[in-house]
């Protein structure tokens, strides 16, 4: 009996090892472990085994069964792995073929630059507000301390609708509108379209965008203005950016300044972009002139504040190294797709 079992086991194992495929393995399973399989036959002949030997023989039969089953499992699972591997190897694709894309559109470079600026100031607690593009002369000039016939008024070539209504030449009138509402303190930026009668060329456009900033509160200082704009410049142009404040003159701020940043292309060493100067002018700013506060109904003895104005196109042209302003308004898709 023992020998018989051993022979069956060895035969089964030898067949398993030599089986070419999983069908053959299935046949082997049936032939040995099936209802009419060889091992089952041995069990059926148990009735001929003496009573006292039966547990022992049963054990032997079971051992043989476990061993055959185990070997079968092993080989089947190996075969399956091999077959899967074979299939995978045959499923070759050319990964260098182009990807299938949903051709999404692109934001205008002005918008990308504006969103960056907005992100920085919103993070500092500034509200983003807007004002009309066609504006009263009063808001565009007079309320900004630029009375009628002031030479400063001539410096901005204004488009007129009539003597009282103009295309705004700056976003500064939004300051006045917000101040007039009288909800203090104020921290706002006002982006928007402005107009000046400049002929179109590589650096001029009769229509462009500015971002006005205004902070009004008690105890706002020029030092606060410096700190705020320095933070802004570093956020926008990089941590290593240095900022230089130069005295300047604007009618609606006093003291006033123009702000230069170290050229972000050469880091201040001087290159073509900064015309060798290492510095690039990016904005004008100052402490809100007491006349402006007063005209908007804010007491300059109690409140102070600062204002600044940034040219959006200037930022976009500098940041993205665009060499001709006209590109911004041609809307050539080959240009827009680069942003």
């Amino acid at each position, binding site marked *: 009996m023992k020998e018989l079992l051993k022979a069956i086991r060895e035969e089964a194992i030898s067949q398993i090892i030599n089986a070419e495929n999983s069908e053959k393995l299935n046949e082997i399973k049936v032939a040995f472990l099936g209802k009419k399989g060889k091992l089952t036959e041995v069990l059926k002949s148990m009735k001929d085994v003496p009573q006292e030997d039966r547990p022992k023989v049963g054990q032997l039969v079971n051992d043989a069964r476990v061993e055959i089953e185990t070997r079968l499992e092993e080989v089947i699972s190996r075969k399956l792995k091999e077959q899967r591997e074979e299939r995978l190897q045959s499923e070759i694709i050319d990964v260098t073929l182009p990807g299938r894309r*949903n*051709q*999404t*559109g*692109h*934001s*205008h470079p002005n*918008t990308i630059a504006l969103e960056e600026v*907005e992100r920085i*100031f*919103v993070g500092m*607690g*500034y*509200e*983003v507000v*807007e004002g*009309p*593009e*066609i504006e009263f002369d009063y808001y565009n000039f007079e309320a900004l301390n630029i009375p009628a*016939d002031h*030479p400063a008024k001539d410096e901005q070539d204004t*488009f*007129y*609708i*009539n003597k009282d*209504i103009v*295309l705004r030449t700056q976003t500064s009138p939004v300051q006045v509108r917000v101040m007039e509402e009288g909800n203090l*303190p104020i921290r706002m930026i006002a982006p928007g*379209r402005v*107009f000046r*009668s400049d002929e179109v060329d590589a650096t001029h456009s*009769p*229509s462009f965008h500015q971002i006005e900033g205004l*902070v009004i*509160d008690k*105890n706002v*200082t*020029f*030092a*606060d203005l*410096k*700190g*705020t704009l*320095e*933070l802004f410049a570093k956020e926008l142009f990089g941590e290593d950016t240095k900022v*230089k*404040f*130069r*005295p300047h*003159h604007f009618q609606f701020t*006093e*003291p006033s300044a123009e702000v230069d940043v170290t050229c972000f292309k050469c880091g201040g060493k001087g290159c073509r972009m900064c015309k060798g100067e290492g510095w690039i002018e990016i904005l004008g700013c100052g*402490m809100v002139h*007491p006349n402006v506060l007063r005209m908007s109904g804010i007491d300059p003895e109690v409140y102070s504040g600062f204002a600044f104005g940034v040219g959006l196109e200037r930022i976009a042209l500098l940041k993205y190294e665009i060499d001709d302003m006209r590109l911004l308004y*041609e*809307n*050539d*898709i*080959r240009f*827009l797709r680069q942003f």
Partner: protein
Amino acid sequence: MKTPLSWIKAYVPDLSVTNQEYMDAMTLSGTKVEGYTALDADLDKIVVGQLIKIERHPDADKLVVCQVDIGGETIQIVTGARNVKEGQKVPVVLVGGRVAGGHDGNTVTGGIKIKKGKLRGVESSGMLCSIEELGSTKEMYPDAPEDGIYILGDDTKVGEDALALLGLRDSVFEYEVTSNRVDCFGVLGIAREAAATFGKEFIPPVVETKGNAENVRDYVSVEVLDGELCPRFCARMVKNIKIGPSPVWMQRRLAAAGIRPINNIVDITNYVMEEYGQPMHAYDLETLAGNRIIVKRAQNGETFQTLDGTLRNLDDEMLMICDGEKAVGIAGIMGGENSKIRDDVSTILFESACFDGTNVRRSGKRLGLRTDASGKFEKGLDPQNCPAALDRACQLIEELGAGEVVGGMLDVDNSMPKNTRIPFDPAKINALLGTEISTEKMLSYLTRIDLGYDSTVQEILVPSFRQDLECMADIAEEVARFYGYDNIPTTLPGGETTVGRLSRKLRIEGITRNVAEYCGFSQGMCYSFESPKVFDKLVIPQDSDLRRPVVITNPLGEDYSIMRTISLNGILSSLATNYNQRNKDVRLYELGNIYLPKQIPVTELPQERMQLTLGMYGKGDFFDLKGFVEELLERLGMNKKTVYNPEAGKTFLHPRKQALVQYDGAVIGYLGEVHPEVADNYGIKERTYVAVLDMPEIYDRASFDRKYSGVAKYPAVTRDLSMVVPKEIFVSRIEEVIEKRGGKLLESCKLFDIYEGSQIKENYKSVAYSAIFRAQDRTLEDKEISGIMEKIIEDLKALGIELRG
């Protein structure tokens, strides 16, 4: 304003800085230097040489061989110049030196290096220089010969630096002077700033001109009839004029400032204008009828010939300088042809006056005439500067021996000295600047620029030349710029916290941009002003309100003369640009305003309506655009039924491929295929689609609220409907039927197939819908749905629709 540094140093003798240091420090203290040019930048090794011997070149008729003494050494130079004679002294560039350019006046950046060479076999070690080769022109050096080598004076020393002699060891600085600093339109003003910036002493010229024992009043009288337009009029007389060249030092300073030296009288007026920032005018006294000057307004319709020969039309807002009979000059703008200084002039009257800036600017505008003088007067000059500048001019007349100054000055002074006093409050200044600058330091900065201080009442006394200083903030700026903007600390505003945010409108626009870009549209930007021809291009009906735009009175040209009332032109023009560039499959969008007047003529601000405009050609059609609209409305929480009404009535769109977008009872926009006539007008030869959404309608209806309504618990029942539908019936009719009959149990109905073609009879289309039913509280039974379906089918049949299968 361009000025040589040597001129500044004349009044700040201790100033000793490099060009770069000067530029940086001046800019940081508020006198912005735009740039500078070192006149000797491209010049090197140029000395005075004396021509000892000149011989003919053995092999060239046009060349001569010179032996030149350059101080202890004689060198041989071959030259083609014909104006040289033995014994003359000339500028000589030595071997290894540089000249600025060629004799033809073309300069080379970095200069041209001079090497030893042979000319037609004869050795030449250096070059004799013309004024052009030294980088200048005959206009600026009137003593230079018409053609040839510059001849230096006999008093020059052989071997010495020729550049210094020619005034070329100097640098010219260009300043950007802001309109509030009229004092800095003169060299003295800038010199005062330079002295304060570098902490050096400012020593202005000491002017005293008594003149002879006579009195100008005995010769001439001045009347000012309009004191408002002429706050001050000063005049002095010079007789026995001797016209001649001005001295070299004056010529050099003027030339470096970009002013051509002419003769002593003209040069003195220009010199004083540069130095004092005060325009001057000289009249030939013999041309002044009645020896009188009358300052009065012109009469309407009067004409006047200015000294440029042009006949000008005058009006009664213009101020004129007249003699006893006639006008002789337009005040502050230009003198007249009739009183021009003649070459044989013997007596002149120098005018140094102050005119109302606004009036000069307005008059200049109406005349279309702007001069150096009017450019200065426009800024509003200091009346107190008039007599000082006039005396300076007379002093120079005496110094230069150009004439005999007559005693006394005519001075009509209608100016009201402002004598501004500003309370000096160091605490407030520090509070505004965020600094802790001591009172002493502040006062030291202020006195450096000649502001006075009355310590008894603690007030700053503003001198007349600083009319821009009016209040504490102005004084704070003066303190800040000499303390140094750089030295002010950097802090952030304290105080109450504020919430940073975008307005609701901007948030909605942000989402709109995202969805448009997700759908493949790139953002364009178009002008707000357009040509009135746009309406014809877009075939807008003649009687349309769109043809009544806001008009710009002073546009850049007709093409930019009206504020757009419809946004399509911008996007169509941009598509055309792309089409012409052969760009394929272009999708663009724009967010920009249109401007609708509330009345014509405009008296109120027009309505500005933000428009989302989309345009596309190439891949995609009407339904891609419509898909975008659906996507956008969903993202904006606009989940009510949107109606696409084919009766849009847009003349610029394909009559059968257009729809109004209606939502919540309002028209929120339209879309369609561009009418081929319009596409032709733009030169686009592909089918083009546009959509316009009127954003204000959307701002009101968008919602950021979202609510979870649960996932359905009970199964749905789906029934498909396959139909053959007459072509003219839009599927919206079918949907209406299904929705009406489906009632509450209908969850959705979806078109899943539509077909027109060979298998379907003519003028019909095959349409298939899935109707999905579901109850929230139970599993639906077949019977319920069958009842509904029967009613639906009945209604569809009534529309002439045949059910299939």
